[in-house]
């Protein structure tokens, strides 16, 4: 990993333990401004824990997280960062239109909610209670919620999980537009094709540490696919 003092995100020697078991074990990584950084890893690798540290929801046992040059979880960081959690992230009875209007109201210069809804294809179910939406529709609403405040940096935890192929490709197009606009994107994913087509830089995380990192070209330079690199460098949980 190159030295990146001006990085949008710098994670250094991060340790988080739950009940004595390390979820992050001296994890170190960085995300360059204006780039899309992908975190790949099997279930339980520590990706969500890492994102929660980056948004200040979890306090690490040791190590540091610097977000846009400051500490994670401060009021300044919360204003400049957008976050899409892996879990649903909305009240069950709220409609997408209500949720986005509410979230937009928390910011000084939000995106136009109607235009954002159109872009993400939310209009068809804008007045349907959140609990009645499909998994993919909920993901699209959550993604819109992470972007509505016009952040400099967004953390997206499995943003396309549950989406159909049309929605996935529309989301990929949107993520490219974000990058073109200068937004730094850090996303977790299990989809190798997603990382392959989108990521400027990839970290493969396993058991709380970075197992291997590089651009997609660097990682697949030996003729292996990204999935083969992933399988060779991670252990994951055996099926029961």
């Amino acid at each position, binding site marked *: 990993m190159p030295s990146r003092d001006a990085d949008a995100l710098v994670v250094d020697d991060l340790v988080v333990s739950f009940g004595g078991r390390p979820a992050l074990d001296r994890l170190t990584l960085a995300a360059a401004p204006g780039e899309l950084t992908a975190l790949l890893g099997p279930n339980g690798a520590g990706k969500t824990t890492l994102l*929660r540290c980056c*948004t*200040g*929801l*979890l306090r690490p046992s040791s190590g540091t997280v610097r977000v846009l040059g400051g500490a994670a*979880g401060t*009021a300044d960081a*919360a*204003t*400049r*960062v957008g*976050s*899409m*959690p*892996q*879990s*649903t*992230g*909305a*009240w*069950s*009875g*709220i409609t997408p239109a*209500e949720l986005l209007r*509410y*979230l937009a*109201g*928390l*910011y*000084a*210069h939000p*995106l*136009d909610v109607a*235009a*954002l809804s*159109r*872009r993400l294809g939310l209009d068809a179910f804008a007045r349907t209670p959140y609990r009645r939406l499909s998994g993919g529709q909920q993901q699209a609403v*959550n993604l819109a*919620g992470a*972007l509505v*405040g*016009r*952040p*400099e940096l967004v953390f997206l935890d499995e943003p396309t999980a549950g989406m159909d192929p049309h929605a996935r490709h529309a989301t990929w197009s949107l993520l490219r*537009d*974000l990058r*073109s*606009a*200068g*937004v730094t994107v850090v996303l977790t994913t299990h989809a190798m094709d997603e990382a392959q087509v989108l990521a400027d830089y990839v970290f493969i995380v396993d058991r709380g540490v970075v197992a291997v990192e590089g651009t997609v070209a660097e990682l697949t330079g030996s003729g292996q696919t990204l999935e083969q690199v992933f399988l060779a460098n991670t252990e994951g949980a055996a099926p029961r």
Partner: protein
Amino acid sequence: MSALDFSPAPGAAPAPRRVLSHALTETRLLVRNGEQLLLALVIPVAILVIGRFVGGRFGQIGTLAPSVLALAVWSSSFTSVAIATGFERRYGVLERLAATPLGRRGLLAGKATAVALIVTAQLVLLSLVAAALGWRPEFSVLSAAAALVAVLLAIATFCCLALILAGTLQAEATLALANLIYLAFVAGGALVIPVTSYPAVLQPVLRLLPTAALGEMLRAGSLGQLPWWPIPVLAIWLLVSSLVVSRVFRWTS
């Protein structure tokens, strides 16, 4: 395709707007929720009406009406807050909002404002129903002020107790336990039944409960009386519960 400008332009709305926006959103969601409305209005009104015409342990309307007002504060500040927050934690609502300009303090302030709005509406509506059923309270200026302070302390205390449950247990466990505690304190917490109606041996213990403190303050206050103990009891509960909640509450599930 619209020409959305994604170029970064971060900035937070003014804090009062954020808090009010959150409070109104929570209030709207609660008003739409049938189970919460049952707790907030239907059950208290039913007790008022049944108690007015049947009497029994609840006593006459002069005792019954302030008891039902105390019940309304208890249900909205404890049970509703515990259940709603438990599921907000489970569904990632807290995780999402804590990472926005609303922040943790704004979220708590918004929640408190929502509870205050809801309890105010409840107290006004239930007082009107009670008045229609013949309630003629005899508050003095001092007893009314003490009752108001007791209600505010009780709201804050019950919210802290609710957040202790919701911030440490799974949502389903919070749902079950919050309802169980609600019923247990309605029946045995001297909230709607005066302390003096319980066996003498239990009365000193009951006077240490926040539910009893609220119920007795409202009952006595509505008769123009000013007992000394409810406000200190509630203040101590608030101090302890706020310290505990600040240490144990978890924002993620």
